[in-house]
Structures are given as C-alpha cells and as structure tokens.
C-alpha cells in the first residue's frame, strides 16, 4: 500500500512539483496550502507523513507541528528556507522529526521520507529492557510497569537503537545515521533536541537522566552502566 503524504505549503508551484516528485516515487500526496486548515486536513487525510513548510499564512508551521503532536506521533519533516536560524530548533523542540533546507535535492527528500516511514528494525529480540522500561518492538510500545508511555515512532526508534546495545556509547553521528538515515551531512542538533524530548517522556528526573545518559564529548548511551539487561 502506498504511503500517504500531506504537503502543507502555501507555494502552489512547489506543492505541485512536490506532488509530481512524490507520485513518481510511489507516494500518494495530498495538499493543504493554508496553515489554519492544516490540522483539519491532517485529521481528515490521516497521512503517514507530513511535509510542513515553516513559513505559512494563517498559522505558522511550528504551531501546526505543536498541535499535531498533541494527538499524533506521525512523522513530520519540516521544509525550511534557512538552516541555522532558531526556526529549525524551535520546530525540532515542538516535535518535528527532521528537516530539509530549501532548495533540497529531491533524492535527499525522498530518502528522508523513506527513513521516517520505515519501521525500526530491532537488532535483538522482541522485547528489550532498559532500566525500568520495557520496549515491545512488535507493538511499538514502551511500558514502565503497567503504565504505557507514548513515544513518536522517531523517539521509539531512538530509544530502541540505544537500548538494543546497552552501555555502548553512540556518537551523535552514529545516531544520525542509524535513526535519521544520514550518511554524511550531519546536524547534531537533531540528536540533541530529540534526546531532550525523549528524556522528558521517559526519565523520572529529566534533568538528571538515568536511562539515556550523556557521555561528555562523545555522545549518548543507554543506562548508566548498571542494571541494564536484554530480556
């Protein structure tokens, strides 16, 4: 079944062109040119992935992203005109999974989309335990005891990558490659922001994390070196 992609962009020509590219890659695109209707369009279309322009008339992309994240973990890729402004970080902080900078390479965009649509492939077992959390790989679920923790697919993939090799230190570049599918270009802010978001959801004390810990100057690892095991 083809994946459905909602393109939220006010530039008609770009939307149409994106539609042509996406169709030629086998996706089913739908369009929404107006920020204020984007959330409604999301609800009615129920897309598998959203391409979201940051600068929109009506409601801007960051606000749309925040509203969608309140009820859905559907992958969101931002389309942005600038790479190093606060927009990117703001977008990531409200839950956008990834971003591409205009003018982007269509191959690059398609690669980003495919990575986000591909379910994470577990390296070990069906259930992974990390700290007091249990990851059910098949069900895409994380539980602490009987309590279910809602993670977006990206956050789940990030946690699973770290947890399936407990105590191995992952550099930000390794995580970019494994979770985001980047081969060379790297913006480590992606990793930093999403680790923060992940910690906010799974850590008992996000300021003093014990499940995803920072290895200063290198990267991150799951666990603090004790009480970690694979079930």
């Amino acid at each position, binding site marked *: 079944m083809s994946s459905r992609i909602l393109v939220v962009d006010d*530039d008609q*020509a*770009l939307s149409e*062109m*994106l539609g*042509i*590219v996406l169709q*030629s890659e086998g996706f089913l695109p739908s369009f929404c040119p107006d920020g204020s209707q984007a959330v409604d369009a999301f609800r009615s279309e129920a897309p598998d992935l959203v391409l979201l322009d940051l*600068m929109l008339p009506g409601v801007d992309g960051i606000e749309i992203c925040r509203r969608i994240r309140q009820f859905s973990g559907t992958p969101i890729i931002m*389309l942005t*005109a*600038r790479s*190093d*402004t606060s927009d990117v970080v703001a977008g990531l902080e409200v839950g956008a999974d990834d971003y591409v900078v*205009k*003018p*982007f*390479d*269509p*191959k690059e965009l398609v690669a980003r989309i495919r990575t986000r649509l591909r379910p994470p492939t577990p390296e070990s077992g069906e259930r992974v335990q990390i700290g007091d959390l249990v990851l059910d790989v098949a069900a895409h679920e994380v539980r602490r005891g009987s309590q279910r923790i809602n993670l977006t697919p990206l956050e789940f993939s990030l946690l699973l990558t770290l947890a399936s090799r407990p105590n191995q230190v992952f*550099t930000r*570049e390794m995580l970019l490659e494994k979770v985001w599918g980047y081969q*060379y270009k*790297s*913006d*480590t*802010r992606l990793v*930093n922001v999403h680790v923060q978001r992940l910690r906010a959801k799974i850590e008992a004390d996000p300021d003093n994390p014990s499940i995803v810990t920072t290895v*200063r*100057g*290198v990267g991150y690892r799951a666990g603090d070196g004790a009480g970690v095991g694979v079930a």
Partner: protein
Amino acid sequence: MRGSRVIAALQRAWQRFSRLFLNSLSLRTVALSVGLTGVAIILVGGYLSLSIGSDLFTTRKDQVLADSARATVAAQAALDSADVQDEQDLNPLILALRTAVNSASISRMASVQRLPGQPPALQAPPDFYDEALAGGVVSDNLVRLVAQGEDPQYWQSVTLTGADGQPHPGIIVGTRLEFPLAGSYGLFLGYDLSETEQTLGSVQRTLALGGASLVLLVALVAWIVVRFVVRPLTIAADTSKRIAAGEGDVRMPKQRDEVFDTLAGSFNEMADSLQNRIRELAELSLVQQRFVSDVSHELRTPLTTIRLAGDVLYRSREGFDPTSARTAELLHTQIGRFEELLTDLLEISRYDAGSVTLEREPTNLVRLAEEEVQSMRALAERSGSEIVVHAEGGYFAADVDPRRVRRILGNLLGNAIEHGEGKPIVVTVDSNELAVAISVRDYGMGMNESDTARVFDRFWRADPSRRRTIGGTGLGLAISLEDALAHEGALEVWSAPGRGSCFRLTLPRNAGEPYESSPLPLPPLDAGASEPQGVAG
C-alpha cells in the same frame, strides 16, 4: 651596594614624581603656588627677621651704652673724690671703684686695665678682670681705641662665656678713667645679649611657623581652586569616557559657567547626533538582516521548485532528443551551481550583518577531521590524491561549533584536492594547553606571495583561466576565515610556487579563553619539500 640601591630607589621615586608632575595640571598649579608663596614668604620673613634683629640690637646697645656711661661717671666720681696722698692709697681705690661700678651698672662683668702708651708707674694699681672677661675677650683693638680716646665710648660685639659655661653673644663697652697718680685706665663692661637673642629667636620661630602655615594654607587653597576649576574638565572627560564605553544616554551637566556650558552644549549635541546615527545604523542593520532573511526565503522556494522540475527533466533525459537532453543536463548542473552560490552568499551576508551565533558543543577534532577526510576521499581519489591524517594531539573535546569546523575543513580539503596536482595531501591535528590546530598541506603548484595575500578575498581565484574541476563559489575560503574568526581562532596560509600550500586552522580549546600560540608550525616543517617525506608533521 646599599648606597647604589638607595640612589636607584631615589631615581625611581624622582622619575615617578616627575611623570606625575608633567601629567597633572592640578599638581603643577599647586606646586607653582606653593613655590611662589614660599619664595615671597622667605623674602618677607628674612627682611622682617633682619630688621627686627637689628632694632632689638640697637635698642639694647643704646641701653648698654647709657649704662656704661653712668658707670663711668660714677667710677670717675669715686676716683676724684678719693683722698689720695701717695701711691699707698691707690689699692683701696680699686675697691671703691668696683663698688661704684657695681652700684651704677647692671653689668657684672667688668675689667679695669691700665691703658698702653703711658710711662710705667711702679705703684700703679694692677689691672683686674672679672672671670668672664679674662683671657683676651677684650680685644687689643678696643683697648687701643680707648687709649686714643677720641670718643668717650667704644663698643665691640663679642662672644661671652656665661655662668652656665655656654657661649653667649655679648657687647663690651670701653670707657676711659683717670686715676690720680697712676694715669689712664680703661673700664670695660661686658653685657650679655642672650636675652635679646632669645627674643629674636622667638620672633623668628613665630615668623617661620606663620610662614609655613601660610604656605600650607596657600597649597590647600590652590588645590581647592584647581579642583573647582578642573572639575568641569573631569566631568567632560568622564562623560566622554562613559559614552565611549557604550553608555549612549550619558550627557554633560551644566556647570553655570559660560565657557563650560558652551562646551557641554556642543558635546551633548554631538552625543545626540552620534546616538541617533547609531540608532539609524542599528535599524538599518536590522532592516538589512530582515531583507537578507526575506530574500533567502523568497528565493529559495521558487529555486526549490526549479530544482525539483530540473531534476525530473534530468532523470527522464534519456527519452529526449539530444538537444533537449543536453539542455536538461545543463539546467541540472547550473541549478546546482546557483544553489551553492546562493547558500554561500547568504552565509557571508549573515556574517556581514553580524547575526552569526556559534553552536558550540564538545567536539573531538581528530575524529571530526577523520570523518571529513573520509567523506572527501572519493573526490580525492578521482584527482589521484591520497589524503593522510596525522593526529599528534587533539584527542579531547574542544568547545567548538562542529558544523562550522567541518565546513572549514571541507573547504580546505576541496582546495587542496583542486590544487594538489594529484600528489598526497597531509592533514595534521595537534593541540597544546589552550589551542587545537588542524593543518591541510598539499604539494601542488602553490602560489606566489601576492596571490597568497589575496586567497581569503571574496570571489578571488588564483588563476581565472584555470578550469575548475570541483566547482566552488569563490566564497569558500572567505566564509572559512569568518568561521575561524567567529571562534576567536585563526585561519592562516603559507604557500610557495612549486612547493604547495599549507592552511592552518587554530581554535581555542574553550570558548572565551584566548590561546597564545598555535600547536602547529607555519610555514610547515617540510616547507621546502615538494613531496611528503615519510611521516610528515
């Protein structure tokens, strides 16, 4: 040794003082006032002291002369009234004489001596001296003058030995007495002037004390006046200093002085117009930044569409006729070039607008260099260059913006591959206490000195006619330099024709901690070689 040290210390103190003196209007004014007042007081005080001293002496001398005259009259009367029959009676006469002198005079220092120049008389009474006048205190000159006897009185200043054994200033007055049968005798009376001297001393002390107080008072007054006069200047200096330090709202207060208030008025006007200008420029810069950002967005969206469209055409070019296929190819490559150029232009305009902020994170530069080299390896192999990495140091987390460092390194490697003529390229990483450095050394054609000096200029190419294989916008090194400077680091180049080039990037290990020297040498140690030799460093 100690002496020379003291002299040296004195010299230093003098130098410090003269420096202070030459640089302080207040100090000079006070010193000048004190100096001039001092001279005036010394002159006036000296004159006063001299004239008071001479008045005191004259008065005392007159008293003394009168006293001596009285004593002489009394003594002569005693002599005249004595009944002297023969020389036997002369001895008791001396006693009477002394009694008469003592009762008529306040002096207790007397001497009576027979004047010279008379025929000797056997029975003449002998000279006598009070102890204070013994031993030549009465000078021969005085004795001779009294003997000549042209005036009734002669006097002489002498030093007397007082009862306390101390020398006292004094006067001796000589007069003439006529002894019956025995001829002329001199009566010399000594008077102690130490009381007069004490009075004078006390007057002089008072004068000196008064003078010194006056000098101090003048110094104080001068200081206060100078402070008062200099205060507006100090305020002016202070105000301009604060404005220079960025406090744009500071203004000079009025001082109720016509001259100063004119200065304050024009200064404040200048500050106002300066502040307005700065505000305008700041606004302009904001407008400029917003413009750049808007242009960025506005240009990029259509460029994205063009790029997507070009790509679709490019991918389906095999179905086109040859002309259209070639057109699609050209469109594709030129869109890429246009995009690169736009990206670099926007980046450099961000630097020009001063709106660049670093996103520092702990970064291992050795690993970063290895990764960047890895990503450039394919390109290097295509032009036949091998890239070697020597990491002697830098295996720690430096506080840098990895994206920018990566970009710098990418630019340097791209250049080295472009100009390396297929010879190996050596990347060296090293560190010291405060800095970490990466150098990229190629052994290609190199550049002459004037080209080397322009290598960081925008859109500058060493050889415009040369065919470019890698592309690049001509802004790469200019942006790299800005990236390095934004880190408070440096990007430097050495190059020699036929020997290749070496670019050295030096960055401080921690933000805000300046380094002293780069861990890597420039020119490189193998500056003379045109091939890498063994393990280069």
